[in-house]
C-alpha cells in the first residue's frame, strides 16, 4: 500500500498512467455530456408551474453539487502536501482551486438566472445558501491569490494547503444551510422512482446523468491541467526532456 502510495506521488508515473486513462475519460465525458444536455435541455418535460425554466436546474444542480467536491479534494491534497511533502498533491491542489472557482461562478450564475425568473430576484444577501456559495468562490479566489502572492513555491504550497483545510468547513455550511436556517433557496429534491408523484424518475435520472457528466468533465480538466503543471515544474528532469525531444 505504501509502495503504491509513493509511486502515485511520482509525477512521471502519474503522467504516464493518466495518459492511458485520458482517452477513455474523454470518451465517457462526451457521451454523458451529450445525453445529459440534449435530454435535459431539449426533451425533459416542463415543470407544471415553472415551464421550461426548470431545465436550467439540470445544469445548476449538477454544477453546484460538483463544486462542493473541490474543498474536500483540496483538503486531502493539502494534508498530503503538509504531511508527506508529495509534489504531485500540490500540483493537483493548485489546479483544483482554479477549476473550483469556475464551478462556483457557474453555480452562482445559473442560480441567479433561475432565481430572477422564479423568485423575482437574482440575488438575496439574507439567504444563507446563496451567501455561503459566494463565500466558497471568495475562498477559492483567496487560495489562488495566496499562491501567486508568495514567491517561494514551497511556502506557497504549505500556506494554500492550510487555507484549503480550514476552508473545507464551508462545504458543510453550504450543504446544510437550507436545512439549518430558513432560506429562499429550496431544500434538495428527494430521489424518487415513482413516476406518478413529484420529482419522478425522468427529472432525477436526467440530473444524475448531468452530474456524472460534470464529474467526468472535472476529472478530465484536472488531469489535463495537472499534466501541464508536471511538464512545467519537472522541465529539468531527464524524462520530460526525452519526452519533448521525441515529439
Amino acid at each position, binding site marked *: 500500500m505504501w509502495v503504491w502510495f509513493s509511486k502515485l506521488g511520482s509525477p512521471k508515473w502519474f503522467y504516464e498512467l493518466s495518459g492511458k486513462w485520458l482517452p477513455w475519460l474523454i470518451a465517457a465525458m462526451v457521451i454523458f455530456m451529450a445525453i445529459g444536455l440534449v435530454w435535459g435541455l431539449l426533451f425533459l418535460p416542463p415543470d*407544471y408551474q415553472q415551464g421550461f425554466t426548470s431545465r436550467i436546474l439540470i445544469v445548476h444542480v449538477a454544477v453546484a453539487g460538483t463544486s462542493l467536491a473541490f474543498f474536500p479534494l483540496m483538503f486531502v491534497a493539502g494534508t498530503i502536501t503538509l504531511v508527506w511533502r508529495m509534489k504531485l498533491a500540490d500540483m493537483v491542489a493548485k489546479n483544483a482551486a482554479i477549476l473550483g472557482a469556475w464551478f462556483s461562478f457557474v453555480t452562482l450564475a445559473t442560480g441567479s438566472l433561475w432565481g430572477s425568473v*422564479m*423568485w*423575482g430576484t437574482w440575488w438575496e444577501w439574507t439567504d444563507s445558501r446563496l451567501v455561503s456559495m459566494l463565500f466558497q468562490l471568495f475562498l477559492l479566489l483567496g487560495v489562488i491569490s495566496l499562491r501567486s502572492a508568495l514567491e517561494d513555491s514551497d511556502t506557497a504550497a504549505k500556506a494554500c494547503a492550510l487555507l484549503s483545510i480550514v476552508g473545507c468547513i464551508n462545504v458543510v455550511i453550504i450543504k446544510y444551510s437550507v436545512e439549518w436556517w430558513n*432560506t*429562499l433557496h429550496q431544500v434538495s429534491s428527494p430521489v424518487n422512482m415513482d413516476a406518478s408523484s*413529484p420529482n419522478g424518475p425522468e427529472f432525477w435520472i436526467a440530473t444524475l446523468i448531468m452530474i456524472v457528466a460534470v464529474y467526468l468533465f472535472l476529472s478530465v480538466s484536472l488531469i489535463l491541467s495537472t499534466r501541464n503543471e508536471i511538464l512545467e515544474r519537472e522541465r529539468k528532469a531527464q524524462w520530460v526532456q526525452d519526452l519533448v525531444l521525441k515529439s
Partner: protein
Amino acid sequence: MKPHRRKKLGIILFIAAGLSVAVGFTAYALKQNINMFYTPTQVAEGEVGAGQHFRIGGMVKTGTVLGAPDSLKVNFVTTDFVSDVPIQYEGILPDLFREGQGIVAEGEMDAAGVFQASRVLAKHDENFMSPEVKAALDAAGASADNHMPAGTN
C-alpha cells in the same frame, strides 16, 4: 508512518476538528440572525419588535388574494397553517405568485396589524412535476395544497 508525519497529521486533524466545533457553535448562536424570514407564528408570538423592518415567509392562503381593479395594489393572507398574517403590497408580483404558493415578503407591520410589504418574492419548494403528473395527482384528489415551504416550521 514516521513519528514526525504522525505528529503533523495529528495537528491537521486537530485543527479541522476544532474548527468544526467552533463554526458549529457560532452557527448555533447566530441561528435567528441567519434565518432569512420570520414565520407568521413567530410574528404572532411577538418575536418581532414594533416598527422593525423584517421579512416574513409563509404560504399564500387559498381564497385570500384580492387585487384592486384599477391599480397594482393587492391584499392577501400568508399562513404557516398555525397563524395568519394579512399582507398589503403595491407592485409587480413574481410569475410564480399564486394561491397555495410559498412567498417571502419584506416590509413592516402597521398599526392595524397588516404587514405593509415593499417587496414580495416567490419561494419554490423542492418538488418538480410535469403537467401530466400534476393533472394525474389532481384527478386522484391529492392536490398540491399541502406543500409547505421548507423551513416554515
